[in-house]
Structure formats: C-alpha cells, structure tokens
C-alpha cells in the first residue's frame, strides 16, 4: 500500500470473501438477532391479548348477549346477563362526541390550514392543540364532571350520556384538528390558486375544492379518533357513569348511560366469576369493532396514497 505513515490493520489481506469469524460479522449477527428478539417482544403482547380475548370472550358470544341487560353481582352467580345496553351506550356516547368534535375540529383545521398566516393567534391555537392532545384523559373527565355533572347545567341532569359525549369530544378534538390541518396542507397550492384565479371565493374554494381533495386523509384521521374514543374509559367514569337499564328514550340522553369500556372496568374488578366473564365478552365485542375500524382506516389511507399516484 502507500509508503506514508498511514497504515491499516491487515484486513485488506483477506480476499474479499465473507469471514463469519470476524468480530464485525459476529457483531452484525448479534445486533440483528437482538433487534429481531425485540420485534418479537413487541408483538407478543398483541398476540397474547388477542388470543385471550378471542378465547375467553369469543366463546361466550351468543344472541342473548346482545339482547340482555347486564346484572349487578350477587343476583345470579351463573350468569351476568348481556351487554346490549352497553353496546348501544358506547354507540350513543361516541356519536355525541363525534357530533361535537368533528364540526369544531374541521372548522379549526380549516382555519389553521387555509386562513391563518402564521400569526400569534394561529401559533397559540397550534400550541393549544398540541397541549390538549397531551392532556390526560382522566382530566377531561374531571373537568366535565366539575362543569356539567355537579352543576346540573344540562336541564338539571347530573351524570348523563351528553356529559360523557362532551368528555370524549375533548379528547377527539385535537386529533380532528390536526388531521384536517395536515390533510389540507397536502392539497397542492396550485389547485387553490387555480380556483382563486377563476374568481372563486374563499368559501367556495375551501368547500368545493380543497376539502373534497383532502377527504380521505381527513376521514382516516376522524375514523381513528372515533376508534380511540370508543375505547376510552377514564373520561366516562365520572360523566356517563354506568347504567343497568336500556337507554332507549330521548330523555335517557340526560341520564347515566352504560358503555362497553366502563362495563369492562367495573366487572373486571368484581370478585364474581360471572361478571368477569361478561367483561371478557364485552372486550371481545369492543376490540373486534375497534380493530375493524382501524383496518378500515388503514385501507382508506392506502387508497388515498394510490389515488395520489
């Protein structure tokens, strides 16, 4: 090699072939193995949770599970009834949350992406959105409890479906704003300029051009937000509370309401086998629904990527 003082260890002597005994190659394999083991560790809990929920919950699925009401412990040691009202309750509370957070969130996202020019107000809103998404969900429950449940501000109602929905909407709001903001930013500026250039107003440009082109990413984000809210428990335990009855009249929106997640929480901690079993059954229903929603969102996202190409 060169005659200068620059010297290399005589690895260059080797004739290019792969030498498994080299420290470097042993380390390579070791690191790869460790990373592989870590990946296995990461998916192990998912596999375990899915298996148990499938076996312990799935085995109890029958028609009466969906039509009966849950029973408080002590009445009947063999059966804890069904989860019919909890399924409906989760649907109602999540819908209320979505109905509140989607229009506000899309409006806020539209403001951030289309109107704001990077001033202090929009900076504050962006920061606030970040902070809000970091607020622990239990605190949303505590706050809604203090503002709505204890004051009876909603027609004198205390624990109610609406209070639960409001608590969930606080958690969904930042996600909806962020996905709308980011979705709209993906829309090419040329499209915006084109619409402006033919004399479309801001309103028409946004509602007819940019929002529709950003439909799939926004829909994906909203779907994920709904899926997350539907599984939330902490905001509901002091707001929607729980109920052993059907919520089937309009006034039941102002009454405590059952939900799958709170049912799981309450019944998991009961010392009675039948109630524990019902918690597993409820987990099966909840988890299947959420996984379907997530896979749907994933499919939507892939579809939108294909569309862009």
């Amino acid at each position, binding site marked *: 090699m060169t005659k200068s*003082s620059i010297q290399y260890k005589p690895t260059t002597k080797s004739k290019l072939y792969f030498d498994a005994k080299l420290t470097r190659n042993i380390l390579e394999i070791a690191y790869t193995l460790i990373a592989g083991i870590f990946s296995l560790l990461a998916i192990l809990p998912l596999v375990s949770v899915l298996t148990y929920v499938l076996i312990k919950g799935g085995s109890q699925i029958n028609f009466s599970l969906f039509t009966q009401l849950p029973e408080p412990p002590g009445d009947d040691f063999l059966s804890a009834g069904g989860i019919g009202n909890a399924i409906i309750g989760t649907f109602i509370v999540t819908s209320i949350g979505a109905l509140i957070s989607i229009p506000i969130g899309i409006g806020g996202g539209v403001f951030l992406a289309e109107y704001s020019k990077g001033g202090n107000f929009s900076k504050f809103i962006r920061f606030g959105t970040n902070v809000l998404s970091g607020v622990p969900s239990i605190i949303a429950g505590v706050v809604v409890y203090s503002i709505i449940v204890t004051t009876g501000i909603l027609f004198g109602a205390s624990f109610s479906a609406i209070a639960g929905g409001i608590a969930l909407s606080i958690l969904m709001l930042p996600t909806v704003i962020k996905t709308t903001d980011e979705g709209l930013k993906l829309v090419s500026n040329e499209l915006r300029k084109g619409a402006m250039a033919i004399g479309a107003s801001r309103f028409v440009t946004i509602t007819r051009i940019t929002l529709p082109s950003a439909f799939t990413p926004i829909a994906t984000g909203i779907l994920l937000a709904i899926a997350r809210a539907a599984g939330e428990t902490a905001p509901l335990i002091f707001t929607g509370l729980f109920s052993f009855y059907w919520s089937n009249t309009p006034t039941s929106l102002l009454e405590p309401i059952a939900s799958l997640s709170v049912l799981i929480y309450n019944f998991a901690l009961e010392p009675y086998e039948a109630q524990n079993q019902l918690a597993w059954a409820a987990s099966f229903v909840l988890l299947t629904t959420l996984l379907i929603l997530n896979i749907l969102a994933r499919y939507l996202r892939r579809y939108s990527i294909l569309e862009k190409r």
Partner: protein
Amino acid sequence: MNIKKLSNIDPKISIALENVTISYGKFIAVRNIYCKIPKGKVTALIGPSGCGKSTVLRSINRMNDLIENCSLKGRILFEGTDLYHPNIDPVEVRRRIGMVFQQPNPFPKSIYENIAFGARINGYVGDMDELVEKSLKQAAVWDECKDKLKESGYSLSGGQQQRLCIARTIATQPEIILMDEPCSALDPISTLKIEETMHNLKKRFTILIVTHNMQQALRVSDFTAFFNAEKEAGGDGGKVGYLVEFNTTKKIFNSPLQKATKEYIGGKFG
C-alpha cells in the same frame, strides 16, 4: 470458500465485466456487458440518460444490493475475484472499491468526523489528525476546511461538500474510486476544482466516472465506454442499455468505430 480465480489474470486490468446483465424486477436495465477496466487509469462511462451507466457503476461495489429487486447475471471480476460469488462479503468489497455519489452526501457530523468515521470503520490505526489533513489536502478542500474542522459538513458549499465526500473516500484508501456524475449538482467553478482533484488522484487510484458532460470525459479520462439504450425487439417497450464501444478516450472522440458513438458525440459537440 472456493472462489474461482482465473489463471490468466491480467495485472493491468482492475475490473472485468463478463456478460453482465442487470435487471430491476422484470425490467432489464443493461444487458450483456463485456468490458475490461484498466488499472491506474481514469475510465469514463458516457451515454444518453437511461442507458444504465450508473447502474453498471453501482454494481461494481455492490451498491445495488440496497435496491430490493435488483439482480445481476454474469460476472464482475475484481483482480480475478468474482464480486458476485455467494461467499463474497459486500462490506469488504465496498471498503476496497469506494464511491462518490451524484449529490454531495456528507454525514450529519463535523468535517473531521466525516473523514474519521470511514477510516475508523476500516480499522485505521494511524494518526487520525494526519489522515484527515492529508485526505482533505488530496481532495483540495484543506484550505477551506482547516479552520472549521469541528463544524458540520453541511456548513460547506455544494462543491466543497462534494470534495469532502471525495476526501472521505480517499481516507479509507480504496483501490478503486467510483464516481457517479460527481459534478452534476455543482457549478462550473466547483466542477473545475473537482476535475483538478481527479488529476491528482489518478496517480494513486483507479477511477471510474459516469458523466453526462462530454468535455469532462475528454478532459479527465484515459478510456471511455459509450453506452446506449434501445427498445428491444419483442420487449415490453422499455429501453435496454448496452455497451456500444470501449476504447481510449482519444479514439472514441476522434475516430469512433461505431456509427452510434459518432452520432452521439457529434450531436453533443455539434
């Protein structure tokens, strides 16, 4: 560990491509290349875009391994050793055949570390400060860098960054340096500096350079390989690259044997 050695190794030949065909999935990029790259010389690879010259260059130090569906048929011999033999360690190949890329790509580290990192992983045990200085001098960026060795490689201009990348490659003391259009992202003055650097380097290294710039090929290279691409009869419409002509640069530019070479060079200059 049975790596075939050819009995008739020509000490003047560094790289020999024997019937090399490279494809991306089903799509064939270049086919049936035969070529012998002389040792200690600068060889330019020229041709229209899409003719596969970069693909050929990247196959020589097995950079194409990083592309998932890229496959190679035929043999590439480096001093008689088949680089695509299953027992070959691609890491070792890249330590002996370095590469400078189209876009300057310094590491997000200090200038000093950019040089030292490569030397260290190649097991360099000498004086690191000396090596850094020497490599930067050889790559003709020492003057611009000497006062800010601790600063990020990104604090340099594009042309300086590219010479830093050359210095980084020199520091690992490869036997061959592959350059993939090293000046295409640079301004004329930086280009000129890089070409001067190459003149200094060709005393110590075998250099292969892909370039779009005919004048550059003429200025820096001793040998030139002209590639072209054509639609295959019966193919699916994609263009397939092939080697048209390989000769000394003088011959390629003054009296090419093939009509296609003549037309291409005539068109580029005319």
